[in-house]
């Protein structure tokens, strides 16, 4: 389980729109779909070439109680808004398969 004292942030699940554009691609529209309390840690930051410049890629790890994450139905297709950042969910791990702690790997998109 995770200590309640660590759950300092309130994260918002952003659910992807199912609408498609003319090319059949997912549109960049998101709907707020529930909050969950979590712990956010910056895992790493790295430089990457982007267009004619460079950008920084930031990886985050979010930890939350598994029942809370399951209750709001967070999936790898969602985004998470927390601590002023929007994060792309890369993986959701049910730690030890124990239904106690969810470890969510994310990358910052905005």
């Amino acid at each position, binding site marked *: *389980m995770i200590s309640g004292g660590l759950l300092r942030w309130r994260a918002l699940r952003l659910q992807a729109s199912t609408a498609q554009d003319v090319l059949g691609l997912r549109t960049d529209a998101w709907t707020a779909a529930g909050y969950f309390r979590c712990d956010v840690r910056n895992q790493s930051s790295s430089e990457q070439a982007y267009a004619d410049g460079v950008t920084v890629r930031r990886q985050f790890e979010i930890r939350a109680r598994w029942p809370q994450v399951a209750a709001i139905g967070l999936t790898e297709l969602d985004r998470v808004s927390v601590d002023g950042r929007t994060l792309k969910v890369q993986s959701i791990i049910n730690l030890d398969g124990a239904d106690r702690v969810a470890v969510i790997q994310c990358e910052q998109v905005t």
Partner: protein
Amino acid sequence: MSIPLSTIKAALKIEYSDDDTDLIRLRDAATSLVARETGLVLAPEDKPMYLAYWRPTAIPFVPFVSVKTVKYFTGGVETTMPSTDYWLDRTDGPLPVLRFLEEPSIDEGTQITATIESGYLQLPNEIVHAVISLTGAWYSNPEAFQPIGLSTVPMSLQFILESLRVREMIR
């Protein structure tokens, strides 16, 4: 008097209801354990105190509210002692001492029963916090063994229990 589940869930930052039954069980167990560890009467309660004969007696129920009745059997009849026949001495230590001005005869094989009103009408915050922290500890660690090391938080549960304990006051 139990601490509202909503108070515990807010403190532990639990925003789902899946584990409410578990949390209620843990809360009740924690409350009971805090009461036993400290010796405090957490809910308003009329506690009986039995005496074999008329003797000054420290009232061991904390927090003490009042002496409701003193009853005894004389001539086969249960009799209530007038409140003017006993008094509370608060000068002898932290616990009030019940002293008797009259010592009527009591039937052999019977006892004197003093009914003591005690207990908190509203729990102090330190007790609420002790119950919350114990509930949270058990909720996060339901098993007796863990494959990881756990540390106690300084000035938390044990500190609160030790500072609230009333056993030392009882002579």
